Structures are given as C-alpha cells and as structure tokens.
C-alpha cells in the first residue's frame, strides 16, 4: 500500500503542531463560498503556542487494521459564549464518537471544567481513563463573528499536543465543531479528517411503485438537509465532484430518457451534460473535476465516454456489445475502473484513462458492480451480488486482497470519504420499506447509521469543504 500516509509512527519532534497546518501560512482561507452557507463561510485558522513545554507525544491510534481499541477522550464543555461553546464542543464530541476510533468520556465523569488559558489538572483527569482531553473557547465579537480556539492535551504525558484557532461568520458555527474534530482526529490517527464534509443522496418518499426521488445534500452528521430538486423528475446516482461543489446526477422526467445533469451548489446553475440521443447514466467526476465519465446507452449496449465539461468534447472509451457502466477514475486520473457484463455476469475491469488495455480484476464467486476507487488510491470498493444478498467489500486495485465489510439482503452504492478510511452505503430491506444510509470503515469494525429525514439511497461524499482534495 504505497500511497498510504504514515499512521502513528514515531513521535514527531517538538514542538508538535497541527499536521496539515505546518506547510501553510499561519492564517489562511480554508473554505470557499457556497450557497448552502452564508456568505461569511470563510474560516481563518492559526496555530496556538503550547501552554506548557511539550514532551513526547504518545496519543496515537493505528486504524489500519481492525485490532485497535477506541481511544478514551474527553471533550470538555468549551468556555466563552454559552450557546456557541456548548454547540461546538457537542459537535466535536459527537463526531469523534461516531468515527468509531474514539470513546468520548461521559460528562458526568468530568472532574473539572477547565479554563482555556491554563493547563488542565492532569492528576484529576487521569483516573477517568481519558487519554486525550480537548479544551476550547468560543467567543463572539461585536459584529457577530465567531472565534473558536481549542487545545488537545495528552492526559498521560501532561502536555499539549496541538492548539489552533479559527474565525468565521456566525452561520458557520457547526463547521467550527467539525473542523476542530478533524484536527483532533487527524492528529491522533494520522489519517486525514472527514468531518467538515457533506453527503449528497437521493431522498425517497411515497409508495415504492411511485416513489418520489429528490436530490438532497446534508452535512456528514445529518444536519442541514437541503433539497436540490423538487421531485418532478426522478433523480438517482448523484456524484460529488472531488474538488468543487458540483454534483452530477441522473434526472428522468416521466416517460423520458434519463439524462446526466450537473448542478453547482454555489451558483445554483443546473445543466444537461452532453448532447446524446439516448440515455446517459452513471456519472463520475475526474479527480480534477474538469471531466466527467458517463455511460451512454447505444441500443442494447452501454459504453463509457469521457466528457470535457469546458469544451464539451466527448471521447469514447469502451466499445463492446455489453453493458459497461459505473466508471470511476483512479486518484491520479491515469486509470479507470468500471463494471461490465462482457464476460457474462457483471465483473470489475480496469483500463487506461484513454480506454487502453481493459482487463478483468474480479474473480470471486458471484458478480461485482459499482466499483469506486479510494481517493487514497489503495482500495477499490464494490457491491458484490451473491446468493443471499448484496455485500459491500474492498479489494486492491489489482483485484487481490478482497475483504467483505458488510453483508445482507441489499447493500449498495459505496462512496468514499475524502480520507479513504470510510464508506457510506445504503441498505434497503426491500418490500415497501426503503434505503437508509450507513457509514462503515475499511477495517469492517465500525458501522454507524447516518440520520436522514426519510428513506435515502445513492450517497455521495463531498470533498473537505475547507479545500484540499481527497486523501
């Protein structure tokens, strides 16, 4: 697994600073403007110096395999503006808990409410078993702008691991919590964060014979649900751009062929992609967001095309008398993974980004579909159909090392978190019931439901909102 970033590893030389801030200016804009957020969404950040001399950090968890134990951590009630401080520290605690890699300490066992400008009483915290302690302060200035500061303490070593402050408009209060949770998560796991993200999905309501399917987007913790279509056309297969706030999806008015469209969340513009006579389906953005892979129906066959969004130029990539669909780029853009029934049943194939040298990589029992290349590059997620149901699994890009992460009657539609550590899938028990979203991690040890207002399917994870691509 050459692309995998180092996880844990030897302690960093001190002073320890937030890993992803060390190569950047002390103050920077890490969010882009968006319609979904108020115009004051930009969030500035700066590192905080340690209050006590740092020693060696030991607060790490290796999440590469399923043999880890969640790290006990306490997220103290933040001080400052009461409403904002309580909300932000609550989000930090909830995010860390749902990740499966942390075990937040119950508030009833907190020995003190630490102030922000002094070191906590480590002797009082050690008996709680908490290895990490997050303290923080959220304040509001006269214009309503928020400043959030936090420190992560290693309780055992009695030292500050990282400290950071962020400023933003009042409308981004929840994001402050997610960004602090990302900083804590990535510092301790060595894996990039994923809490400051959204998930697009298909909201489903009504009887299954006439189910209304709308495009929706929400924060990864289920907050701030927004509906992007009204249900007059049926919408499926949303795919988030890995670098922008564009979402490609299939839209089908009743009695008409489905067409791939792209909606931009910042401008609200929505357009049909390409000019084709027949159905277009199964879109997926290139890593740079400038091209789109689609499946174009050609009579009884389906072939994969690349479409340059600026020039509208299209390039045919497969030419088979089969159903080729569900394409997905490798994170370097050099290869494409897709499913095809050219050999009889659906199997996973990989080819060059120009369509060269297609070769099959899935050889297990059953059929394989919906391959999705991890943004970290190391794994392919897939849906596997076998007697007894639809499983979700991962394999290496050469097809080796297959592992099933969840099984059941109907699991479908894996989408990667930008850090390559989690998938969101949907699970539909069938009948008049409907899909629900679940987050699972690549060790197979973590599974957590994502709350949605109604039935939900076809999740697609956004990139980190603060910029920087996946991984």
């Amino acid at each position, binding site marked *: 697994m050459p692309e995998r970033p180092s996880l844990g590893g030897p302690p960093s030389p001190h002073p320890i600073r937030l890993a992803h801030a060390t190569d950047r200016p002390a103050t920077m804009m890490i969010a882009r403007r968006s319609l979904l957020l108020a115009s004051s969404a930009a969030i500035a950040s700066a590192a905080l110096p340690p209050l006590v001399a740092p020693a060696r950090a030991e607060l790490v968890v290796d999440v590469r395999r399923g043999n880890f134990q969640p790290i006990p951590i306490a997220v103290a009630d933040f001080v400052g503006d009461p409403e904002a401080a309580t909300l932000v520290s609550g989000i930090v605690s909830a995010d860390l808990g749902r990740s499966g890699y942390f075990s937040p300490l119950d508030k009833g066992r907190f020995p003190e409410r630490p102030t922000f400008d002094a070191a906590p009483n480590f002797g009082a915290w050690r008996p709680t078993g908490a290895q990490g302690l997050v303290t923080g302060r959220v304040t509001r200035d006269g214009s309503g702008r928020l400043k959030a500061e936090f420190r992560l303490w290693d309780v055992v070593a009695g030292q500050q691991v990282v400290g950071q402050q962020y400023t933003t408009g009042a409308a981004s209060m929840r994001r402050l919590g997610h960004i602090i949770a990302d900083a804590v998560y990535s510092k301790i796991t060595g894996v990039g964060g994923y809490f400051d993200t959204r998930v697009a999905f298909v909201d489903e309501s009504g009887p299954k*014979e006439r189910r209304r399917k709308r495009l929706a987007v929400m924060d990864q913790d289920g907050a701030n649900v927004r509906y992007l279509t009204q249900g007059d056309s049926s919408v499926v297969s949303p795919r988030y751009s890995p670098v922008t706030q564009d979402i490609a999806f299939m839209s089908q008015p009743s009695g008409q062929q489905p067409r791939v469209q792209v909606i931009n969340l910042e401008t609200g513009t929505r357009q049909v992609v390409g000019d084709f006579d027949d159905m277009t389906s199964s879109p997926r953005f290139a890593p740079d967001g400038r091209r789109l892979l689609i499946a174009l129906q050609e009579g009884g066959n389906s072939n994969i095309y690349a479409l340059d969004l600026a020039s509208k130029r299209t390039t045919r990539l497969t030419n088979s008398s089969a159903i080729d669909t569900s394409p997905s780029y490798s994170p370097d853009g050099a290869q494409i993974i897709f499913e095809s029934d050219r050999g009889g049943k659906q199997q996973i194939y990989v080819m060059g980004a120009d369509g060269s040298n297609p070769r099959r990589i899935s050889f297990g029992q059953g059929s394989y579909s919906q391959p999705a290349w991890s943004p970290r590059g190391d794994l392919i997620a897939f849906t596997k159909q076998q007697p007894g149901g639809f499983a979700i699994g991962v394999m290496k890009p050469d097809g080796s090392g297959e592992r099933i992460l969840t099984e059941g009657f109907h699991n479908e539609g894996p989408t990667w978190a930008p850090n390559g550590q989690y998938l969101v899938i949907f699970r539909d028990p069938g009948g008049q019931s409907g899909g629900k979203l679940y987050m699972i991690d690549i060790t197979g040890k973590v599974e957590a439901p994502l709350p949605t207002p109604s039935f939900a399917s076809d999740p697609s994870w956004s990139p980190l909102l603060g910029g920087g691509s996946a991984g």
Partner: protein
Amino acid sequence: MRLATTSGWNAALKVVAAAGLALAISACSSTPEQLADGSAGGIGGAGGGIGAGGPATPGSAQDFAVNVGDRVFFESDSSDLTSTATATLDRQAAWLARYPRYRFLVEGHADERGTREYNYSLGARRSQTVRDYLASRGIPASRMRSVSYGKERPVAVCNDISCWSQNRRAVTAIEGGASS
C-alpha cells in the same frame, strides 16, 4: 377478420389470464389500482390487471392492454424473449398494424435484484429487444419510442420471486394517435 373469428375464445382466455395476474399482483401490492400510474404514458391504463373484468372498446388502449397483452416478462438478468413473450409481441404487432394511428412507448424495467446503474442499462436492453422484434414484424420505427426505468418502478413489491418475476418486464404503452 381473422382476429374477429378467434376473438371469442381468445378474449375469454385473456380475461382469465389477466384476472389471474391481477390476483397475483394483489397478493404482493396493497394498491394494485396504482399500476396504471406506475406505467407512465398509457392513456387507458397500461396495467395488466386493469379493467380485466369489463369490455374494452376495440382499438382502444384498454383493448390493447386487456385483449392483446401490453407486457412481456423476462428471466432474471436476461433480455432474451421467451416463447410466451414472442407470442405476446406477435399479437401486439398485429394490433399495432391494424391500428396504425397509434404511437407507442416501450418501457424497459428490471427487478430490484441488481444495482441501480446496471438495471437502467438492463431495462434499456429489454426495451431495445422488444423494439427490434416489433420492427421485424413490420412496425415502423417512427412509431416507437423507448425508455428505461431500471428498477425504479416496480409493479409488485415484496421480497419474493412472485414479485420479481412481474417486475422484469417490458411494457408497450399506447401513447395516442396522429402519427403515420
């Protein structure tokens, strides 16, 4: 004329068959009346069970659905036409030749035992198979449109083959006159 001479026996058999289908659907779906909506485009109700008990005006969309049979069924993960399907399509072709004023829409559907994207293409492949067959029986392509609904519009909802087998289908929906 030939249609007329055999219509007595055939119509009686069709009504029985349609009623049987309606019962099968009722067993799975709590609201069989919604079938007409579920098969968009039909002006008289394209559902196989709709109007099974009543007389249909010859040449009407209801006549087509009830007395000819507006749908064919497929084996799992297949778009090959069964002998039952080709017999139905032969009757559809005869009816469509007799009433050339109609355009029609061929809807391709899949059951829920497949992934979403694949099932859209499988539905398209099934509708293409039906179009090709009707064309081979002399129906002009200019009268046909096709659409795939993938697995998004089941007519029967349960976790059982009795439902899946009804959902793997291609429905010929009469769209109205003023063509050819």
